[in-house]
């Protein structure tokens, strides 16, 4: 906690040269910054003295937009937060609104959401480690990971109709039931995936070049990780045993048997190991969810919250009215406020929803894990060389769509 640290000050372009030091920009258009991140670096030769990440180039004002539409209309916007794991975002937002309304979703819906969340986690971690491996020099690893991810996207397409922008969750349920034979295909994917993951593991994890670049680099101590509010795999990489799925269980995660993966030193190598192992744990969860997938409805029977059955809409006046109201006015959510965090692939994605009643939120605040991870770069980057930046950024696995909102 007592590490030496000063906040970066705004430096104009005019003071480019301060004695021997130089101020340079890395990004916003740079392959190692994973999107449109601009790093303002004060360097002495190759050594970083101060780093100031400049974010906001993908800012779309999602929180403002949310105040002007119904809860269900906002779900497609959550796809565009962390676009590598859209399902997790949909589900986190739906969970938050359900928490506010005090709705308990059905057990089948919970199991479907768990499968979606964990498959999303695998897909997101695959892209994370793929980009990370490529930044560290392994293009082969990149290709392997994207091949595996494509299989997951195919499964998503079958389930939701879209590869990436799934918009699958609804307040009080999910959009549609799982198609015939889908769980069998998920199961065969799980069987196919584990040996393939071992291949990537064997290819890169013990690779001398990779270890030299990642081990001992970008060390984040436990205290610093907590102070900066890091969450998810980045926090666990620093050795803090904290997993919201275990600690504040949601979606019935307490019924699944899995391990919390924790690093020891908090360097880039630990974060790599945590992600690789987390994918294996996710497969464990997916298999358990398939095994005990309960029958029953996929949405709550409360037709003021979720759309009534089509059959009822065509024959029952009451259902027809409610169907119309949920679509046009939005689900009826009581006044109040709720905060919910889900353990997403990038960290804890939090939604704060304030409602004054009715179908439209009064205020939505998105707590983006990538935003928090990037804020810690001010402390993590100084002291490293410029050539370490791609590895450090890769190891934190952030997405700018989520950071800038």
């Amino acid at each position, binding site marked *: 906690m007592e590490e030496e640290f000063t906040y970066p000050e705004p430096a104009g372009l005019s003071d480019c040269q301060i004695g021997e030091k130089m101020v340079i920009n890395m990004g916003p258009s740079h392959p190692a910054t994973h999107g449109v991140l601009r790093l303002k670096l004060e360097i002495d030769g190759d050594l970083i003295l101060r780093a100031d990440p400049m974010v*906001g180039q993908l800012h779309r004002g999602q929180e403002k937009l949310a105040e002007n539409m119904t809860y269900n209309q906002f779900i497609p916007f959550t796809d565009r937060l962390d676009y590598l794991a859209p399902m997790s975002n949909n589900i986190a937002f739906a969970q938050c609104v359900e928490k506010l309304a005090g709705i308990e979703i059905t057990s089948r819906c919970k199991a479907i959401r768990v499968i979606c969340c964990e498959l999303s986690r695998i897909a997101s971690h695959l892209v994370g480690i793929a980009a990370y491996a490529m930044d560290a020099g392994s293009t082969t690893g990149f290709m392997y990971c994207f091949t595996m991810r494509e299989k997951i996207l195919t499964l998503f397409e079958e389930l939701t109709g879209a590869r990436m922008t799934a918009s699958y969750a609804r307040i009080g349920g999910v959009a549609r039931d799982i198609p015939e034979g889908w769980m069998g295909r998920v199961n065969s994917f799980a069987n196919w995936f584990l040996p393939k993951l071992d291949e990537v593991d064997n290819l890169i994890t013990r690779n001398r070049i990779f270890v030299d670049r990642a081990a001992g680099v970008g060390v984040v101590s436990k205290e610093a990780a907590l102070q900066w509010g890091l*969450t998810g795999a980045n926090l666990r990489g620093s050795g803090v045993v904290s997993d919201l799925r275990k600690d504040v269980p949601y979606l019935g995660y307490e019924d699944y048997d899995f391990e919390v993966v924790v690093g020891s030193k908090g360097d880039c190598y630990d974060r790599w190991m945590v992600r690789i192992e987390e994918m294996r744990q996710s497969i464990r969860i997916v298999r358990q969810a398939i095994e005990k997938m309960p029958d029953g409805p996929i949405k709550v029977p409360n037709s003021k919250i979720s759309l009534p059955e089509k059959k009822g809409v065509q024959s029952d006046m009451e259902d027809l009215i409610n169907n119309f109201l949920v679509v046009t006015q939005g689900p009826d959510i009581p006044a109040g406020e709720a905060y919910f965090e889900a353990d997403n692939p990038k960290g804890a994605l939090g939604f704060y929803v*304030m409602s004054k009643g009715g179908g439209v939120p009064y205020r939505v605040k998105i707590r983006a894990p990538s935003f928090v991870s990037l804020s810690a770069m001010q402390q993590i980057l100084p002291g490293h060389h410029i050539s370490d930046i791609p590895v450090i950024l890769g190891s934190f696995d952030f997405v700018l769509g989520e950071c800038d909102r």
Partner: protein
Amino acid sequence: MLEKLISEFQDALSARPSRDGIEAFNCKKSALVKVALRLRDAYGFEALEDIAAIDNGEDAGQERFGAVYHFYSHSKKCYARIYASCQSADEPSLPSLCSVYKGADWHEREAYDMMGIKFEGHPSLRRILMWESYPWHPLRKDFPLAGRQAPLPPLFEGQMDAAEIIPAPEEGGPFHSPNSGVSAVAQKEPRSAEAQDMEKLDNV
């Protein structure tokens, strides 16, 4: 669990209604830093998760602006929520928590950028999502959804006013406005009413 906290800060803290099982408090802004310190050191809330700036609308008077803080304890596995009101509609400000949680840095910059709340004692309070010369605070309730005209930031010295940001052509948009009907949309987006009038004229 946190009832003890209220008794420690009897003048400054009061319970806040909560629907989601998170213990919530209203806190006077003068005591905010002290309360956060106690939360961190004595109650084990190691992490500041989020700061959500709130605009309660122009009707709320001096209570218009405020911020909701969420803390998380990794050891006790629970959240705490604190709401602090800025007590001013014209120059809203709150004390900065950067000295307690380093992670407060960007959250406070975002609250400043989006809502215009000044954080006293913040080491480097700048805009974060919008550019530095941007004149508005877009999450305020009186800021229209379509946006307002604003000049683009200069790329280099001497290169100015080459372009400007113009409001989005919403015409009411695909967005749904609650409790309202057309008139509220027209109030928020005056140009949408104009556009509708034009349509009517065309039809005649």
